[in-house]
């Protein structure tokens, strides 16, 4: 491998697959997982809000659909993460230890608890719903006991889901930001960025699924606030990298104008944030018949953000 910089010609005899000439160890599996993890975090927090504010009836999607989707979507994300493991048979090793300095270890335990609490609320909501197979699942052994437990502790579980949702959302960002060797990721702002983006995709998904007009418009308004917040955090993150050291500046140039520039500006900034913000503002002013275009774009933007970050972050090191 040869690399030419301003003053020197640097040659290395190393050519390890996925390491040289640039790191590429994480493919589509990781951004898909980060997207679904953030989305589920958003769904859990919004569901907890509906339960804790005692507005289940006014917020039918947030209280009736979100909990049913949470655990299966999380399972889908974990499935993607599992595919990324090079030694899949050793997956149980995550649960024979707790490594306090490793965000991935924190994450695997958080995910286990999220599965329990989100699964309980999801099951209890599902068996009461008119979803396919619900009446059969209700008759399975133990289900009635689990349902009764979830109903008895509905508020406690909602608080747990809110706290765990925030942890899950932040963790998807910290997972990347913990690597000092990857300057593009090495910013604490990635935690709040991924949390807000996850909430935003959760609200967008609710707007797409809700059949209740008031709930849908409420979620779209909430999403507008979240998108503006996400845009601000994104801007602060970029500024902190531009004004950082040589490595930080070089890494952010990858997404501002380098090989990832086109994808970042079109999919993340314009399609994922700018356009939906514009459409929502126009809808609020009555100049646009609020449709489902904006929330669909938000989902595309959320997924693109994670793809661009995961791919670009590996491209450059210290």
């Amino acid at each position: 491998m040869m690399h030419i910089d301003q003053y020197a010609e640097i040659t290395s005899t190393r050519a390890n697959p996925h390491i040289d000439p640039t790191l590429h160890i994480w493919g589509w599996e990781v951004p898909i997982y980060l997207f679904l993890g953030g989305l589920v975090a958003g769904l859990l927090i919004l569901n907890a809000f509906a339960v804790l504010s005692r507005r289940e009836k006014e917020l039918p999607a947030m209280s009736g659909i979100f909990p049913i989707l949470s655990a299966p979507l999380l399972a889908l994300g974990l499935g993607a993460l599992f595919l990324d493991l090079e030694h899949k048979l050793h997956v149980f090793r995550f649960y024979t230890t707790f490594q306090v300095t490793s965000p991935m270890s924190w994450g695997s335990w958080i995910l286990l608890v999220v599965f329990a609490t989100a699964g309980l609320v999801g099951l209890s909501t599902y068996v009461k719903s008119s979803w396919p197979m619900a009446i059969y699942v209700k008759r399975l052994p133990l289900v009635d006991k689990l349902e009764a437990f979830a109903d008895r502790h509905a508020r406690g579980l909602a608080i747990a889901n809110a706290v765990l949702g925030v942890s899950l959302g932040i963790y998807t960002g910290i997972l990347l930001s913990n690597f000092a060797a990857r300057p593009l990721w090495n910013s604490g702002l990635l935690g709040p960025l991924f949390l807000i983006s996850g909430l935003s995709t959760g609200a967008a998904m609710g707007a797409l699924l809700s059949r209740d007009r008031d709930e849908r418009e409420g979620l779209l308004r909430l999403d507008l606030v979240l998108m503006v917040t996400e845009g601000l955090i994104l801007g602060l993150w970029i500024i902190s990298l531009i004004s950082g050291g040589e490595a930080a500046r070089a890494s952010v140039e990858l997404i501002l104008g380098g090989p990832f520039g086109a994808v970042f500006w079109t999919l993340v900034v314009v399609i994922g944030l700018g356009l939906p913000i514009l459409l929502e503002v126009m809808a609020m002013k009555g100049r646009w018949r609020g449709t489902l275009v904006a929330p669909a774009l938000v989902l595309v933007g959320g997924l693109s953000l994670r793809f661009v970050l995961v791919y670009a972050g590996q491209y450059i090191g210290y």
Partner: protein
Amino acid sequence: MTPKSDRRFGMAVDMVACVGCSACVIACRDENDVPEGHSRRWVMEVVRGRFPELTAEVWSDCCQHCDNPPCVTSCPTGASHVHKATGTTQVHKEMCTGCKACVASCPYGARYIHPKGYIDKCTLCVHRLERGDNTACEAVCPTSAIVVGDLDDPNSEISRVIRTRRFKQQKLDAGTKPRFFLLQ
């Protein structure tokens, strides 16, 4: 956060002596069954200017066996660890899930994915160090450019060379406190 160890083994490579012959790379491959197409060691060459006006730096490079190893702190299972007796950075392959957090965390790109699915790297020939031997790369080097030893022992050869020679270290900004010294 620096894990405790009884000794602190490190490596110095004399850039004045190293000719970039790659004998160490081959010796390492032979000693440690490094899989085809992968390297635990490699040779770096930095050339400035054009012939005849040029300078060149050549050295044999590997895992820096850091005092503050991010590969160990980022490992979710404890597979990546600091070897108690020598302070070298090692992988328990039977505990490794191949999540690659350690690979992402290493600023030196010193780790690779073994075809059998675990993460592999330079062990500083810990199996040889434990029986009081030197590393395969040090043993084979025709110009004696490689020095391996305990940095906590003031009488070791490596302690002596880093006291008496000018040296530089790679990517100190990444905060890993490498135990790898390039003698100038």
